[in-house]
């Protein structure tokens, strides 16, 4: 039997939106992943420390309050410095302030080193399917 895949989940920065976070924890657990949920108001360092400690396959970053651009910048570089440069990074939510097209937002986050970027309103099943694909599960 394959080892359970661990993912690290949290809402980055000064953001306290807890509802989606609780739903993601429930649905990813239900889908068979081991979920390390750091909850709301998680710093880049906390994400990385948790991922290193638990040998996680992916970090799933949520941001709902609009400051995501400032909060997420540099996360990939810090992962590299911590020896987990290849870890999967997903981001989802209301990722910038103001109305911009999702393709602009996606390009910006791709540039920052995120593997998958989700607009608001995507159901957890989509990210679960993507994660399975990216991990070859």
């Amino acid at each position: 039997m394959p080892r359970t895949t661990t993912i690290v989940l949290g809402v980055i920065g000064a953001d306290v939106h807890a509802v989606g976070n609780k739903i993601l924890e429930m649905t990813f657990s239900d889908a068979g992943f081991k979920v390390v949920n750091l909850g709301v108001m998680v710093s880049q360092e906390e994400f990385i420390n948790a991922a290193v400690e638990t040998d996680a396959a992916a970090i799933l970053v949520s941001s709902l309050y609009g400051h995501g651009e400032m909060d997420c910048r540099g996360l990939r570089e810090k992962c590299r410095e911590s020896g987990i440069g290849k870890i999967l990074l997903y981001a989802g939510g209301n990722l910038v302030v103001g109305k911009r097209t999702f393709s602009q937002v996606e390009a910006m986050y791709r540039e920052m080193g995120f593997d998958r970027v989700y607009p608001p309103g995507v159901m957890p099943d989509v990210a679960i399917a993507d994660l399975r694909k990216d991990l070859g599960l």
Partner: protein
Amino acid sequence: MALENRKWEQTLLEESRRQVLAGWPTGREVDLEDAMNYHRSLGQERISYHKLRRGQQEGVTFLQPRAGVALLDEHINLLNSLEHQGAADFLPTTIDSYTRLNRYQEADRGIEESKAAGRSMLNGLPAVNYGVKNCRRIVAATGVPVQIRHGTPDARLLAEITLAAGFTDFEGGGISYNIPYAKNISLQQSLSDWQYVDRLCGLYAEGGIIINREMFGPLTGTLVPPFISHAVGIIEALLAAEQGVRSIAVGYGQGGNLIQDTAALRTLRRLARHYLDRFGYQDVFVSTVFHQWMGGFPQDEARAFGVIAWGAATAALAGVDKVIVKTPHEALGVPTAEANVAGLLCTRQVMRMLAEQNVQATQRLADEEQVIEREVGEVIAAVLDLGEGDLAAGVVRSFAAGVLDVPFAPSRCAKGAMMPVRDLRGAIRLLHPGNLPLSRETLDWHRLKIEERGREERREPDFRMVIDDIYAISKGMLVGKPR
């Protein structure tokens, strides 16, 4: 010092104020005498307390948007659009998330990055960083009352600066701005910090300046049963009144079922008045606030207008003093000025069309009102019991015990043992009561309502049903039918 629900001594306030004002350089600008003189220069139409009183006498419902951006001039332009194009009766100044967590250095960086980028990089106005003189420019540039709206567990310095700047209305409370907005802040701390804010308002009141204090009704905005937000709002009102606050608004976030929402608004006004009178605060003015749907919105703007219009209809039919208006960009983040104006115009149109109509007093409405009144009575009695008569101590112990509980809250202080779900008609009920101190009779009412839905949908009510309910409105319905 042990937390208790008692008016702060002058010496304690003075000592705390010195510390708070030294917390950031702009604190030095606060001068109470100058502040009160400025407040005295404002006409009554620009003072929340007076406008709310007049509205209540005349049976007018006021509209207020949410808005705040990083740069001062842009913020003033934004408020001008909302006042002139949107005909907002009350204006907001929404504070950014860094300031809400007292991270003023990061807010400074947000201002600089916004200047460099030519667009707002913050989700609100960092008022502490701007200071008294700059913030006064906002008050001076507007013709209607401006309220500070935020989500700050420790809002002492924010209150000092914005009240000194001339804002006449300040939202928040030690529970409603902690439990939904923080992770690790104790209730002892937030309740004490809000006693400071309320005592500061009391100080202004003693100088003849009545600041309106609004309690944040919607809490987590996610399937909060009316009695929970009522109990929290009333407790916060009592704590504020003890510190000398003279004008209090209690709030409620739309649930979506017209009968339950009507019952909620009618009981909120009655219960707040009842408890304030019962504890000796007969001279406190009370008003009610209705928040249009606070949960997830559809992304499509036309559909979002549908949600906004239903909130407007509910407010008009149920009756309330002020409505906090949503925008068609709700699902996509911080809205543009145009979207915000559109939300106001849509709401006004529906409310004016329904001004002559109201919800009929039926048995169902009477039942809902009776249930809410009983639930609130049961919860507040248990809180007072746990506090051995002291409300503030009771709140701390009640959250620890789950006797007060809020669903989907980020705070570690909330047990999160209770779980809400909609019934067959979309009213919000309890799936699991957790440790809420409700009578058998009350629990049976909830259980029967949920069993009814389970039978109709041919499934056992569980967490999946709750998730379906949370996403339902963004998908075009109120009750999350099985997928």
